């Protein structure tokens, strides 16, 4: 079949269009576009079906695994697709690695090196036990995240625009330095021994729970990496859709109970806000996908992210 590839302004991206097998998939089309345009590798391409001008409908995005004939509505042997360049892309694992590396390396700098003299403080300082445990806890957390990125998480096929590397690293690295500055400060005031133990103890339990959640999520997807969504089940997922975010937030709560800094709490609130946004999207997507019609299971009644609030 013949495929015409146009840009959103209507111009033909590939003069004369492309010739593909009738049985070709969207992935084949993306390969063909890449061959002709060199610059636009498949993960940079966003292909949609044209919408009527003035229509408020969201355009249908072509899914890379589907066959092209699914989009031609059967009758025609010619298909027009609209192309959008998503810009240079990076793998999610690359993005995560760099955003987590910052906190992992920056925090110990405030603990081990005499940085506070540059802020005008005397060099001598007493290191409280809680500050040492906080260092271990924090570094373990980000080490765990990096390990999960490479060995546990199964990402959907998607990549991320390279601009997100700068945005995400700014977020993680800035907050990392912000918290590290206060917890390792020469004038840091520790909480009681009991409060510290409760905080770190609770935090560790939540980190273990969080790891288990990640294992459960991993098993929902097959190793061939074709993404897709299933109803999560087991452990805390039976009561809350995004149990992985729940345990992550509570794990930060544990850290903050033990270290008690405004900076730590601010970070936790911001992170909870970001995760809540994602959780709402995921919860809605799952409810829409699993609507109970046409033999599909119905998504069960569950909390979104933070029982008993949401």
């Amino acid at each position, binding site marked *: 079949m013949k495929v015409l590839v146009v840009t959103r302004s209507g111009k033909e991206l590939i003069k004369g269009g492309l010739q593909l097998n009738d049985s070709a998939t969207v992935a084949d089309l993306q390969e063909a576009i890449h061959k002709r345009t060199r610059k636009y590798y498949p993960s940079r391409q966003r292909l949609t079906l044209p919408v009527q001008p003035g229509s408020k409908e969201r355009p249908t995005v072509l899914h890379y695994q589907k066959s092209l004939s699914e989009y031609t509505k059967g009758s025609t042997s010619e298909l027009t697709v609209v192309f959008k360049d998503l810009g240079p892309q990076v793998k999610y694992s690359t993005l995560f690695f760099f955003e987590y590396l910052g906190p992992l390396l920056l925090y110990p700098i405030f603990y081990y090196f005499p940085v506070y003299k540059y802020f005008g403080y005397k060099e001598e300082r007493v290191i409280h036990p809680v500050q040492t445990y906080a260092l271990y806890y924090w570094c373990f957390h980000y080490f765990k995240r990096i390990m999960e990125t490479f060995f546990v998480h199964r990402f959907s096929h998607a990549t991320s625009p390279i601009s997100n590397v700068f945005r995400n690293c700014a977020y993680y690295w800035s907050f990392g330095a912000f918290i590290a500055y*206060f917890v390792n*400060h020469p004038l*840091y*005031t520790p909480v009681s021994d009991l409060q510290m133990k409760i905080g770190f103890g609770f935090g560790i339990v939540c980190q273990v729970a969080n790891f288990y959640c990640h294992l459960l999520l991993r098993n929902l997807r097959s190793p061939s990496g074709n993404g897709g969504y299933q109803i999560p089940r087991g452990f805390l997922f039976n009561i809350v859709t995004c149990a992985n975010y729940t345990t992550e937030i509570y794990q930060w709560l544990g850290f903050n109970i033990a270290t008690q800094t*405004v900076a730590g709490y601010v970070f936790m609130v911001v992170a909870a806000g970001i995760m809540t946004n994602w959780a709402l999207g995921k919860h809605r997507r799952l409810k829409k996908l699993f609507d109970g019609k046409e033999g599909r299971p119905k998504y069960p009644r569950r909390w979104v992210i933070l029982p008993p609030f949401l």
Partner: protein
Amino acid sequence: MAGILSLVRRIYLSFYNWIVFFGWFQVFYLAVKTLKESGHEHVYDAVEKPLLLAQTAAILEILHGLVGLVRSPVSATLPQISSRLYVMWGILWSFPELRSHILVSSLVISWSVTEIIRYSFFGTKEAFGSAPSWLLWLRYSTFLLLYPSGITSEVGLIYSALPYITESGKYSLRMPNKWNFSFDYYYAGLVALGIYVPGNPHMYGYMLGQRKKALSKSKKE
């Protein structure tokens, strides 16, 4: 129903714009009068009350944008109003040592002329449906001079305030404390100065774009 709501909106906005216009007119009048009669050292004291009122009232404009009463995006109004409130309350009102500075006069004149034009423009539009082309021209052209003069005054005053900020320790929180938090208003001032560096080309560029849009639209009509 929609017709009545739209009318209420128009009446409210007309009142709002003309009342604040009057406040800024007072500021301008008192500033010029004081400059002529007593000198720049006394300008702040003369304009303080209407200035604080008229500028603080602008917080309502953020609300107007948020609820959709006006079209201006919150992303443009919020930084503008924040910087005004910071300079006015956070610098001038908080540090009386600055009030006799000559930049106070240039600040107050720049702000008041801009606002007189802006509020009368919107007030006329809401009350009468449209504004005369000379007012449109003024609203989208005087910023070309008044933005730089206003910003120079703002930056100059923040910079002049720095030694007084350090000396007074105002608005700063020191460690040690139970919540392991500190805030240094001096560094916050440096950050504010830093924000002016990319912030102002951005705002100026935004206004230039608005000017192009507004003046070309009126040519077509």
